[in-house]
């Protein structure tokens, strides 16, 4: 268990899981970072154009946490993303192929249909944006109550264990939601039963308009873990490889029957809490803190490493220059064409879907039959 600074921490892994990744993996990871970014940017634009209802909680600048944590999962593993993790819904089990219909993740079509509020979404747009999920895809459906999803994540892997299936659940949480009682209850229970539950803390240092120091009193949240008798790891949330390493360590720990872990990923929220909050966030967050925080763009960090390893030339790295740009500054040309194409497929599907008919509002309160 390590609870040092993220910069120190990454060097401590005896054999970094990412050492086994090849150039193709690196390229795939970079592509996924692009895709997560593009998805977000595209929604920001669509929202600005008035084509979307509901609040957008941007994952801009936090993509490495989602991409790096999902990369090492098995298809049947479970995840429970929350409001800032929209890309996770369709990126789960991407290793089985972005377009593989057997993949255990939701399709980009389903996710876009959800965001657009159309029937093609698995929840038929009954609840909004990030409150989706899919039993088929092994994605737990969250309510708004943030850490309130963790006990359910504990429950699904307990069910698997009772059937002799060795799955792991990844739950995503903002650092602010760790203050909730249910966070504690769920982690404590999981620790008692050594459940394969990996809790990722996306520490972006702000919970809406409240800074971390008013949410808890340790600099490193991961230190909480020891009190539960479980490992607490810290990852550089801007470095997709470090996230991958730490999460994989926790996942292997879980899969080998040793129980839950907490992985704190230090990152930074690029904009307001939600898009309604952008203007106010510019006031309540100190300007230099924001500039500092945004500095390490996960796409740039990854490119740098790839260039250093010779996995990419500087010229190649310069080609799709989405990094270090705000949503307003970036264009489709800043992204690889397959990324834009993939998203387009989702959007086209979504806008072609109808809204659910009114009377569905009265349906599915109770399940029928035995």
């Amino acid at each position, binding site marked *: 268990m390590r609870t040092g600074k993220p910069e120190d921490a990454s060097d401590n892994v005896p054999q970094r899981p990412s050492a086994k990744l090849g150039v193709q993996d690196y390229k795939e990871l970079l592509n996924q970072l692009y895709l997560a970014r593009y998805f977000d940017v595209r929604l920001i634009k669509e929202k600005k154009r008035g084509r979307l209802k509901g609040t957008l909680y941007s994952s801009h600048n936090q993509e490495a946490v989602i991409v790096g944590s999902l990369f090492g999962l098995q298809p049947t593993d479970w995840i429970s993303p929350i409001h800032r993790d929209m890309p996770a819904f369709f990126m789960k089990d991407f290793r089985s192929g972005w377009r593989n219909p057997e993949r255990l993740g939701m399709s980009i079509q389903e996710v876009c249909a959800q965001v657009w509020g159309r029937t093609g979404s*698995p*929840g*038929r747009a*009954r*609840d909004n944006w990030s*409150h989706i*999920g*899919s*039993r*088929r895809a092994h994605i*737990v*459906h969250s*309510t*708004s*109550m943030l850490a*309130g*999803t*963790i*006990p*359910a*994540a*504990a*429950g*699904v*892997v*307990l*069910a*698997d264990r*009772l*059937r002799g299936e060795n799955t792991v659940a990844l739950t995503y949480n903002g650092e602010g939601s760790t203050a909730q*009682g*249910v966070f504690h*209850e*769920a982690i*404590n*229970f999981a620790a*008692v039963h050594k459940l394969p539950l990996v809790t990722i803390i996306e520490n972006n240092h702000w919970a809406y308009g409240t800074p971390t120091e008013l949410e808890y009193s340790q600099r490193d949240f991961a230190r909480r873990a020891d009190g539960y008798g479980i490992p607490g790891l810290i990852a550089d949330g801007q470095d997709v490889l470090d996230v991958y390493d730490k999460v994989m360590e926790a996942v292997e720990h879980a899969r080998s029957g040793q129980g839950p872990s907490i992985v704190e990923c230090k990152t930074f929220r690029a904009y307001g809490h939600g898009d309604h909050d952008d203007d106010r966030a510019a006031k309540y967050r100190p300007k230099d803190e924001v500039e500092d925080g945004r500095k390490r763009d996960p796409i740039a960090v990854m490119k740098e490493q790839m260039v250093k390893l010779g996995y990419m030339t500087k010229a190649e790295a310069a080609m799709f220059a989405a990094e270090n740009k705000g949503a307003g500054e970036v264009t489709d040309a800043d992204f690889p064409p397959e990324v834009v194409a993939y998203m387009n497929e989702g959007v086209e599907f979504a806008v072609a879907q109808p809204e659910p008919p009114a009377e*569905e509002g009265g*349906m*599915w*309160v*109770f*399940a*029928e*039959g*035995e």
Partner: protein
Amino acid sequence: MAKTEAPARTKINYLTALKEAIFEEFERDADLVGMGEDIGLLGGAFGVTDGLLDKFGRDRVFDMPISEAAIVGTACGLCLNGKKVMVEMQFIDFISCGFDQIVNMTATYHYRTAGEVSMPMVIRGPAGGYGGGALYHSQMNEAWFANSPGLKIVCPSTPADAKGLLKSAFRDPNPVMVYEMKELYRRRDIEEEVAVGDDAIVPIGKARVRREGDDVTIVTYGNNVYHALAAADNLASEGFSAEVVDIRSLVPLDEATIKESLAKTNRLVVVNEAPRTCGFAGEILARLAEEAFELLDAPPMRVTRLDTPVPWVKPLETFVLPSVDKITETALRACRY
């Protein structure tokens, strides 16, 4: 309900009936697991799950930390992934600590997923006053959940109903809250023969006429069924014949049976233990006033707890809860209206 060919069974109490339901259903359905505080090693605060751990083992019976939210939430995850779960609240009063997980996470799951996911969860626990349990061991808080769509609610008053409704609850694909009357757990004078297996099933959503009568319909459930029956005796000696309807299921409610009764009596008294304002007695009264207005020859009336907590010492407790006297007096007013 016992088949005639089966050997006569001895009479059992309400608690034993619940126990039989649990053991039979755990036996029948290998996917059913139990979660609660002290339900394993101890066998439950009241012994309802006594022996369950021995028989079904640590993979079926979980002694949980004092974490009502995690208990319900974990159960929710288990249901999401193919299990069925019996959740025991040590006292139904403690359910307030797991409230969000019930009303927001579990109750809405089927709705939110447009039917992809169902939640075969039974949340059961000892409830009700009259035992000197004071504020936090006497509650009837079913109205909170009646106002939270997606939950079924039952409240049996006899051993046969306790067993039969609990069995139905276990087989229901929806979350079902079972309000067990702890003052009836070991009451001797209500012991009865109860069927085994499928024969014991009592369907959710069917009321039961406990006593027939022509002058006034007393609608109630749980502990107050017995107060209502005693009040009916009192009424009889005053020359009025009361029909007593035990609704047994609150959600869904068997309105047809109540209306049928009203068609005869044209007078309605509804009794429950919960605080008056927004309690389930008010809901029954409202529905009937709305839908069976023409059947009413007198104002529909309620006998409920006062809008107070349940205090501890007997005189105070008696003052705030419904009683035979209060029901008698109210029903007489209805009859004489």
